[in-house]
């Protein structure tokens, strides 16, 4: 059998317990009927316009993320332990943010080098000494997890900035329920459909103290040409929030207000899907058309909540990531419940040497990169690619970290030949407010559709699956 952990079947071919009911159902279905259903699903996505835009291609190009109809199933017990681990990690992340923007005790304790903060573009001096409303920095976190064995879950990235993809989690579930309603009567799957309501509740709980009455929520989008516009519109719709663009906003009487058909109306909580750099042309990039001039002043004077808080991107830095076990322990006093992937910091001379010597076995990532761009997967790279990456590494070792190539678990997808295992990851969505850390039972499972491929990013040909967390 394969060297990878398959979540549905044991090496001997026996079906694991979490998949037992599904498996029984699956074999009662006619294969050609299932394939017909799969085609139908694509039609539904196309028709409803659930698409994403790919940068660098024709501006008008909208693509579908392929959807696979075999669910990814997580047992109740597995989820409970994941949940605890994620909660702990998210608590630590918030404490870390607060610390680096205040006393920086973690630096004084010598746990990580100062330059990682000081020389980091994602660190915003504007946030120093400022307390965001409710003390929350990372309102929404999308923790990327991979699995390598029965109880082996690793955190790959924390995505504390603006995690996307949650609309796919919701639409995938809708699609599955529409296509196979009887399946949901046979398998006890925990619902995810109330995510938008929970998001709205969580954001409202973080409203500025000055806010009176029901907080007015806005979702700030860069606009219809943004790759995730569909999701921005979807969430605004489901939350009953206004979907605003930078050009709709201005400062009026010390608040951020939006231009409505009846004049300017204040916004209390802004769920922004615009990067820090573009948030405020007066404070950050002066050429930005996507933000609202003056929003940082309003924010600093307590007039609005920005979610996630500016400056949280520092937690997405892959060099900082490598310190997460220490960060968790430093702020929670507990041993980390979730594993970090072993990480070599190329800024370190010995590590760099090790990485260069073992390049063909490692995954090398840009410290500030995301979306699967600019990374090297050693085992899959050609000689030429290895040579080019070696040169990049030598020229700028600080810019990179390296990790072992993980044996990502597999879940079957439906192919013309029947079920075939493909590698997956998992992104649950975590909502943070002063009174609780709220984790929706499910998440986005991304799947590499090409046989043997380890890259699950939608921009690189990955697909998605509905993710089921089972009832007890």
């Amino acid at each position: 059998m394969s060297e990878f952990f398959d979540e549905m079947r044991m090496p001997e071919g026996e079906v694991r317990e979490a998949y037992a009911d599904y498996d029984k159902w699956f074999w009662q279905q006619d294969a050609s009927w299932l394939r017909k259903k799969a085609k139908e699903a694509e039609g539904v996505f196309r028709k409803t316009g659930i698409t994403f835009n790919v940068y660098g291609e024709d501006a008008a190009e909208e693509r579908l993320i392929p959807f696979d109809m075999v669910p990814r199933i997580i047992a109740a017990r597995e989820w409970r332990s994941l949940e605890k681990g994620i909660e702990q990690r998210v608590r630590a992340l918030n404490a870390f943010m607060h610390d680096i923007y205040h006393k920086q005790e973690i630096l004084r304790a010598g746990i990580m080098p100062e330059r990682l903060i000081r020389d980091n573009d994602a660190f915003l001096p504007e946030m120093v000494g400022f307390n965001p409303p409710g003390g929350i920095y990372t309102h929404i976190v999308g923790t990327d997890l991979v699995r390598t064995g029965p109880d082996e879950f690793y955190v790959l990235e924390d995505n504390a900035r603006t995690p996307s993809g949650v609309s796919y989690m919701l639409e995938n579930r809708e699609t599955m329920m529409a296509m196979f309603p009887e399946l949901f009567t046979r398998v006890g799957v925990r619902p995810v459909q109330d995510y938008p309501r929970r998001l709205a509740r969580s954001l409202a709980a973080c409203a500025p103290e000055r806010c009176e009455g029901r907080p007015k929520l806005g979702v700030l989008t860069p606009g219809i040409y943004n790759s995730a516009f569909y999701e921005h519109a979807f969430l605004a719709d489901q939350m009953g929030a206004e979907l605003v663009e930078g050009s709709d906003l201005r400062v009026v009487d010390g608040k951020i207000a939006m231009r409505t058909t009846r004049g300017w109306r204040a916004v209390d909580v802004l769920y922004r899907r615009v990067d820090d750099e573009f948030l405020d042309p007066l404070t950050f990039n002066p050429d930005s058309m996507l933000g609202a001039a003056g929003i940082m002043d309003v924010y600093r004077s307590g007039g609005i909540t920005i979610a996630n808080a500016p400056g949280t991107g520092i937690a997405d830095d892959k060099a900082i990531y490598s310190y997460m076990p220490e960060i968790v322990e430093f702020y929670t006093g507990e041993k980390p419940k979730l594993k970090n992937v072993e990480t070599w910091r190329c800024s370190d001379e010995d590590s760099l040497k090790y990485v260069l010597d073992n390049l063909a076995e490692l995954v090398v990532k840009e410290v500030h990169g995301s979306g699967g761009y600019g990374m090297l997967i050693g085992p899959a790279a050609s000689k030429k690619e290895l040579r080019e990456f070696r040169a990049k590494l030598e020229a700028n070792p600080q810019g990179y970290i390296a990790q072992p190539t993980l044996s990502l678990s597999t879940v079957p997808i439906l192919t013309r030949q029947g079920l075939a295992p493909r590698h997956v990851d998992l992104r649950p969505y975590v909502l943070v407010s002063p009174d609780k850390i709220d984790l929706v039972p499910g998440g986005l499972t991304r799947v590499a559709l090409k046989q043997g491929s380890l890259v699950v990013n939608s921009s690189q040909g990955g697909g998605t699956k509905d993710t089921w967390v089972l009832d007890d």
Partner: protein
Amino acid sequence: MMLGRNANSIFWMFRYLERAENTARLLEAGFRMAMTRDEFTSQEEWRSVIQTAGMRRAYEAEHGTYTGIQAWNFVLRDRKNPQSVLSMVENVRTNARAVRNMISRELWETINESWMEVRDLLSAPVQQTQLGDVINAIRREATLVRGAMEGSMLRTDVFNFARIGGFIERADNTARILDVKYYLLLPTLSHVGGSLDNIQWDSVLRSVGGDRAYRWLNHVGVEAKSLADFLILDRRFPRSLAFAYGKIRSNMASLAEAYGEETDAHILLRDIDTRLSDLSVGEIIDEGLHQFILGFLSDNQRLADAIARDYRFIE
């Protein structure tokens, strides 16, 4: 209450939809005319279609002659024509996409599916044998979208802005068609009751989808005065100026009721609509039909501007 930018998108979404549909009707009428004529007059007919659609300058920058296949492909799908039906349909969808969190799922899906259909039909040059299908698809889109809106949208400001946009565009388009063809009236206006070139007038009526409706209401042949009366003042005909203004008035009244106040646009609207109610067709013709239409087009534009200003469509 809604974002001003979104009100603008909804308003224009329905203007573009209306324009796409009217352009398709114009092509249909032109195609019928051209079929019945010799080559020279057929050229003249296509020139007239292009001019009525307001595309003459853009067309002549591209083509030296007027042939059917060039003309309809230019009107339907030429990328160098910013007013092409394809651009209009794309504009409808782009605007809808921007406000998809405010329109019903049914409406969005209708627009999205229609866009996919029209886009596919217009992905290659349209041959004569396909022209009918293409025109039908565009008309069907407009009908389906209006139907989805009627049947699924809340009667809030979103709905009102959509309707107002659609009727402002419709009034504009009907007035323009009349204006381009008004010269046909001239020789006969002097002798009352004179019968017109039936084929020409049939074509005008077809361009606004009113050929049968006119005959139902006017049992005798086409007569200049009654035709102007039908297109301008007949409140029973859904593409007349007076009909469009009646609808705009009722949707503007709903807005005023929901928002608890009237705006400058309401005052302007009352003036324009009163003129349409008080004038008789005789007075219009005495005053000069061309003058009347020019005045109307400019009023219509002023109204659109006032609405955009009063409801903060743009900063």
